[in-house]
């Protein structure tokens, strides 16, 4: 990104170098004399017009057009003054030093609320935020009024507020000839230029922040809309958890979600809600993280956050299992519920074993047709011919809920035999399994009844199954197709 910015800056540089400077100098002269810099701007230059519009909007937005900016401006200008004094290196040489980019940042810094117009460029906002951070960082010394005025206008190279690399901007600022400042201002008048300016500025800023790398990068990622006040506190907070990506992400997401102006309250940890996704994405969001908002009063290091996420996932699944397993509603507590789940799974497995044993013992006395019929029944959605009325008797012979009870005595003897004669290769196949089967009947009985009913209806036509209490027709059932 820095490279892109440099490139764009380099591209733009010649433009304003040739054009802007010259015109700017003239304008600066006029402007310097004129306290009302808005009017003094020569509108011919697109930069200037844009800049004036930009500047005016913040000015308009803020009730204190001058004083509001003054604070920030003063600091910046103070810094600028230092820079100016350092020397007159040609700032134009470095692409990062283009005034336009400086302008924009300066103009925007004083007014946090007026960042809206510039929020179009997320990168810009980040830079602005960083700049504002710098400004509040107190890097700036005193301020001279004249300097401040020029500074206000130009907004320019004051970016080098850091003063670390004042060389680049010093010539610009250094000219008490607000010439260059003006040029900077004029340059950045157009929003696009402003953005590019900001972009260039960011690169310069990034260069100027060798020491504050962590905070800087974090901030760069963090706030799309630069909130001047917020950045210092999150910066401080971030420093505490410097290595925590998740933490920064959570803060980031919190900050992103907060509307402009609410920043301070929310800047520190505790959001009201826990968000698992990032809202507005910073330019380079790490995509492989699940972003979690830390709750109020809870630890916010990455480990506990991950732990919390896991715990909630587990309790979510436990709730789901609670619905699946009958009789789990009264139970509260993970351990007991897990015990219930284990018991239920065991009983289900035993039921399957028992049923397979039952199927093995019950010799199908029916013809193969029956099975073909059944398979056909389940495969096709169509109904079988109505001619199979003889099956109605068997259909009616399914007394729901009653059937299993009837079925059991038939096979009761056999399981006993099997139990004694078979080696207990299959675990769980014990006599209690029969009880388990019976016990489980009420559970699935209702469901099974309906299924059975539907099976019968489906396979044998739309016959009204009638509950058939009493003997089961075990006679020959002939299927007439």
């Amino acid at each position, binding site marked *: 990104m820095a490279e892109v910015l440099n490139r764009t800056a380099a591209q733009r540089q010649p433009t304003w170098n040739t054009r802007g400077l010259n015109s700017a100098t003239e304008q600066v002269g006029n402007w310097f004399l004129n306290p009302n810099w808005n009017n003094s701007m020569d509108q011919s230059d697109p930069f200037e017009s844009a800049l004036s519009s930009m500047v005016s909007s913040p000015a308009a937005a803020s009730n204190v057009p001058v004083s509001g900016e003054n604070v920030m401006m003063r600091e910046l200008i103070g810094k600028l003054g230092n820079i100016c004094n350092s020397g007159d290196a040609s700032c134009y040489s470095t692409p990062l030093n283009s005034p336009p980019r400086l302008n924009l940042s300066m103009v925007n810094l004083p007014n946090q609320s007026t960042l809206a117009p510039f929020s179009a460029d997320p990168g810009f906002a980040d830079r602005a935020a960083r700049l504002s951070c710098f400004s509040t960082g107190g890097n700036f010394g005193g301020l001279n009024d004249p300097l401040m005025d020029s500074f206000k206008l130009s907004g320019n190279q004051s970016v080098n507020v850091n003063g670390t690399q004042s060389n680049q901007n010093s010539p610009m600022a250094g000219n008490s000839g607000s010439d260059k400042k003006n040029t900077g201002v004029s340059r950045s008048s157009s929003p696009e230029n402003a953005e590019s300016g900001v972009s260039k500025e960011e690169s310069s800023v990034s260069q100027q922040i060798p020491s504050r790398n962590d905070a800087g990068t974090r901030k760069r990622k963090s706030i799309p809309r630069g909130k001047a006040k917020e950045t210092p506190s999150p910066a401080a907070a971030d420093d505490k958890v410097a290595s925590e990506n998740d933490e920064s992400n959570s803060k980031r997401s919190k900050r992103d979600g907060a509307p402009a102006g609410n920043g301070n309250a929310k800047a520190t940890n505790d959001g009201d809600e826990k968000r698992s996704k990032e809202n507005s994405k910073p330019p380079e969001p790490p995509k492989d993280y699940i972003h979690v908002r830390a709750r109020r009063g809870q630890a916010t290091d990455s480990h506990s956050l991950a732990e919390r996420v896991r715990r909630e996932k587990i309790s979510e699944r436990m709730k789901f299992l609670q619905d*699946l397993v009958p009789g789990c509603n009264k139970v509260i507590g993970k351990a007991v519920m897990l015990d219930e789940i284990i018991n239920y799974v065991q009983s289900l497995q035993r039921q399957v074993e028992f049923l397979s044993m039952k199927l093995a013992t019950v010799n*199908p006395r029916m013809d193969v047709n029956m099975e073909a019929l059944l398979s056909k029944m389940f*495969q096709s959605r169509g109904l079988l011919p109505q001619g199979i009325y003889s099956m109605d008797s068997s259909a009616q012979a399914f007394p729901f809920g009653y059937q299993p009870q009837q079925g059991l005595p038939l096979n009761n003897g056999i399981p006993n035999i099997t139990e004694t004669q078979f080696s207990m290769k299959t675990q769980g196949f014990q006599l209690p399994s029969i009880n388990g089967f019976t016990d489980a009947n009420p559970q699935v009985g209702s469901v099974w009844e309906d299924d059975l009913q539907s099976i019968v*209806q489906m396979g044998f036509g739309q016959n009204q199954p009638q509950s058939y209490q009493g003997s089961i027709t*075990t006679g020959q059932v002939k299927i007439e197709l």
Partner: protein
Amino acid sequence: MDSQLLNPTSLKSRFTTRFLRALTKINAPNPISSSSPTPREIFQRYRRIKVAADKSMAYSVRSRTTWSRATLSRLRTRSRHRRLASFGPRSSVTTAAVLEKASSHGKENEGGLVVQAGELRELVPGGETMDLCNLLDETAHYIKCLTTQVQVMKTIANLYSLE
């Protein structure tokens, strides 16, 4: 409930189809319903039916869940064991080693539920290698499939027994 059965792609119908086919295959060798099949025969049939039930259920689920995959692989190795009886002990040793290795990782954060989680892992096929979170997912799906299995088998058993 009607819609469930009528839906040809539901788990229940898929399982039923497969299971019935397997059942007919198993019952086919009995040309005549012998009066009293020997217990041994019954036991053999029982085993085959049980395997068929598990297999058809696992196939109905395809490989979407860990437990179905584990069941299928277990069934395949078992069949292989039966055919190559001599290799039985060896493969069992290797599987045990694999299980040990697999079970060591991914099982933190169970808190006070280690015992129950361990039991659940024994019950759910393929549960040894999962952490609690996934284990609960698998358990939910496994329970759902087991209940389906029980339902269908009950129905079929009753249909059979009515004859």
